[in-house]
């Protein structure tokens, strides 16, 4: 079962430039929350703050409180440990180029010291099934390299890799923007199924995707969270004029 995400007064900077202003929101457990907004509004930054990937950029920092279930992300635990509990899928599929499909899925576990081979086989199979890739690759798990798959398959491989470490939350940063419509469709279907077990936050610049996949949607503009509500409401009767302007295409 997934857990909920609570964010309180999150601020983030790149050097001296502030990118996020006092973000406070909640993403409920076992649901998908979409994050939309025009380019440069801070949606990627926001999601990367949830698993402290933001600080891997030199001179970047964040303040505030983020809680994922019982876990206090910014207080008390090292960033590396946080990231082991949260899964992340990036915009451009990034399987490890020198590793086979099997090794890619197992990477999160192996690199963190998990070496029980019998269980690894089981976990790899389960993760690939979860990401709907198993049937396509089950015969060439160790023979083919992760980079030899098609774009859509690579992204599903990355999803399997993220799921293998059994996170409770899955963060997805525009996972379909580099993919063709068919692969996109497959991944959206996947998100639907994954919601039963995980809590998902998905950044997307595609409003139709948000309405297809997420129960809740948050609209970001210039580093601020303007409105967060049920997706239906955001797209039909938004409370804030700025949201309405974005939805109806007056800017963005």
């Amino acid at each position, binding site marked *: 079962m997934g857990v909920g995400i609570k964010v309180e007064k999150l601020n983030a900077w790149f050097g001296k430039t502030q990118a996020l202003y006092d973000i406070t929101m909640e993403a409920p457990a076992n649901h998908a929350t979409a994050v939309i907004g025009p380019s440069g509004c801070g949606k990627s930054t926001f999601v990367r703050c949830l698993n402290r990937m933001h600080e891997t950029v030199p001179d970047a920092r964040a303040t505030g409180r983020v809680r994922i279930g019982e876990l206090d992300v910014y207080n008390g635990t090292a960033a*590396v440990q946080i990231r082991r509990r949260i899964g992340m899928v990036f915009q451009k599929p*990034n399987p*490890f*180029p020198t590793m086979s499909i099997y090794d890619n899925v197992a990477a999160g576990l192996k690199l963190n010291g998990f070496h029980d081979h019998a269980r690894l086989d089981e976990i790899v199979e389960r993760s690939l099934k979860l990401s709907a890739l198993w049937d396509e690759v089950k015969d060439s798990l160790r023979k083919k390299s992760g*980079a030899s798959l098609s774009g859509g398959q690579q992204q599903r491989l990355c999803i399997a890799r993220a799921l293998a470490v059994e996170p409770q939350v899955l963060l997805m940063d525009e996972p379909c923007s580099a993919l063709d419509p068919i692969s996109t469709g497959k991944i959206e279907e996947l998100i639907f199924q994954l919601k039963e077990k995980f809590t998902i936050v998905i950044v997307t610049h595609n409003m139709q995707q948000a309405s297809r996949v997420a129960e809740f949607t948050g609209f970001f503009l210039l580093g601020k969270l303007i409105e967060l509500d049920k997706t239906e409401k955001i797209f039909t009767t938004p409370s804030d004029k700025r949201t309405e302007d974005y939805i109806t295409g007056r800017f963005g």
Partner: protein
Amino acid sequence: MPETVTATSDFAATPISLWRRGMNSLATLAAGAAVVLVLLPLGAVFGYLIYKGIGSINWAFLTQTPKPVGEAGGGMANAIAGSAWILLIASSMGVPIGIGAGIYLAEYGRNRLGNIIRFTADVLNGVPSIVVGIVAYAIVVLTQGHFSALAGGVALAIMMIPTIARTTEEMLWLVPNTVREAAYGLGVSRWRTTLSITLRTATSGVITGVMLAFARVAGETAPLLFTAFGNQYWNWKMNQPTAALSLQIFTYAISPFDEWHRQAWAGALILIVLIVLAVSAVRIVASHGMLKGAN
């Protein structure tokens, strides 16, 4: 009668002057001649090496040590082995430090200190090899009181480090950041990511750099002149003067004995074959794609 003005299109139809066309052809000829003049000595060197050296390479040459002056026969077995020994010592110091420095520059060195180190590495690359020999002499030979393979190894290691550091840095820099981010996203620690993911992705490129540095120092003579010094006999110890292929070629070449001249050619042929093999292997590895699929 109205004056006719020559249309500008007539200008465009004027042929390019003979002078300009002549210059163009001359330039092509001159450039081509330059190529021929440059390739000539290359062909000549290889040609002579094979012509003069091939006859003298036999089992005896490869397995025997030098005979006393004046006697025919003997070989360079100890020199070949000595070179290998010295190179092994040099690599054991030069390769880890060089790769480490390269990792530092690529992963931690995008700052002022990194720039200073980068600049210094390039400076170090330009130091004449004879000067490196002097320094190795001062550090090792004077301290120990005798010439040694270790001193030769130190001299060569000093020459390997900056080359390996810069090529390693270049290769690591080519690894796209998305690969590192994928590892961070999985909660892998930074040191583990650098070694198991980043370095691993750049492996073939790094190996290329190491082999290039290796091929470069394998033929060096000057830094060994007063460090390893040379030896008529076998030596596998770190602390004794040791023969080296390049040293032996030099000693024989400037000697007045025809017999030794003959052997110098043979030794040179062996040396160049080994180096060409190393350089070609590097080319093959490089052309098979350094970062398989990572883009």
